[in-house]
């Protein structure tokens, strides 16, 4: 998992600090949702615009990261019609794949291929996977962000990884 930025503690972080700490992860999360750079930039800006206006209302500053992720997810759902066709992937195939081999394959692949594989899978799996891999959120934070039980997060991550690994093999 990527290193998480330092936990934000009192006093409240200023806007510039939050941008510097989180904008790269937030952009990558946006890209995984919208699958193209211009829309990802727009979505990132929209998210930080909301933070500029409402971030002062966040009482627990350790929640800034998950607040940004949750806000971005909501902005995404608000602004886009997302029911696009996703490549269907045989999950059963992934079950037979080897994690060690996949790790080696991932290390040698281009980052854009990894991002495309993630961006191509259905929302149900893509959202928790993006929050897990890009934002580095814990299961509990993902559950709060997606408003689903933590057990559902775990099962979607588990099944999502199978779908993802199969997609990596396809790509």
């Amino acid at each position, binding site marked *: 998992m990527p290193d998480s930025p330092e936990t934000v503690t009192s006093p409240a972080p200023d806007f510039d600090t939050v*941008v510097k700490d989180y904008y790269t992860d937030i952009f990558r999360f946006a890209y995984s949702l919208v699958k193209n750079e211009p829309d990802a930039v727009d979505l990132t800006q929209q998210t930080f615009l909301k933070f500029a206006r409402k971030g002062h209302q966040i009482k627990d500053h350790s929640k800034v990261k998950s607040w940004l992720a949750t806000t971005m997810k909501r902005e995404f759902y608000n602004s886009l019609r997302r029911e696009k066709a996703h490549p269907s992937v045989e999950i059963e195939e992934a079950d037979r794949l080897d994690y060690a081999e996949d790790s080696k394959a991932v290390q040698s692949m281009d980052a854009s291929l*990894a991002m495309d594989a993630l961006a191509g899978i259905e929302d149900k799996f893509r959202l928790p996977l993006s929050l897990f891999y890009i934002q580095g959120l814990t299961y509990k934070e993902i559950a709060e962000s997606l408003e689903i039980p933590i057990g559902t997060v775990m099962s979607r991550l588990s099944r999502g990884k199978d779908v993802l690994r199969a997609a990596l093999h396809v790509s």
Partner: protein
Amino acid sequence: MSPDDTPSPQEQEFDRAFAAKLAEFPVPADLEAKLLALGKTVLPAEDAEPQLAEIIRPSAFKRYWPLAAAATVALVLGVGSLIIPSPVEFPAIAEQADMGAIYRDHMAHFANERFFLDAMTDSASEAQASLRESGAPVFASVPAGLQPLGMMGCKSIDWNGGRVGLVCFTREDGEIVHLFIADKSGFAEADLASLTSLETSRGLQTGGWSDGEYVFMLVGSEPGIEVAEYLPAV
């Protein structure tokens, strides 16, 4: 990984490798500068409402604050009864009624009326304390969909022989989203199913859900105010 155990070392290695690969995904070179510039042009939304003891219809607070101030003056002058809104009265409830539909209709009716809030606060704990003190139902924590919004205040409402809690949230554009909270015991299980549909009631968009012992209903403050985005994810 299975829901019951921790990921295997091989799976953790894959996780690290994939996360590291995604972290290599290029970010536009000018994005940071754009975002930093954004912060210099946007002022935070106001979070400090005027400290009036009572307030007029929250859905139009910004437009009606002079009236609220006038009400305060009128109280001092002893003519408050001319300005203070009367308690909201609900239509009669027919026997065998679908209480889910009635709840939706009556809360939309209430949101269209003028009323005072019991407490003006942006603090969830203060709203909880106020509602509990008056015997009204209240959430254990602010529903996730509403957390990005500001809180304006709360009110306890007499309805159908019991109490309903109302918490008002403010959107970025200043409009209000009403969250009504009723005790689930007053509803038949069959009546809860229809709550989740988004419907326009009395000109306002409404949508609800039940959770634990409570039944929640969101109502916009004006026609066109959509509440779908504040509902729990299905």
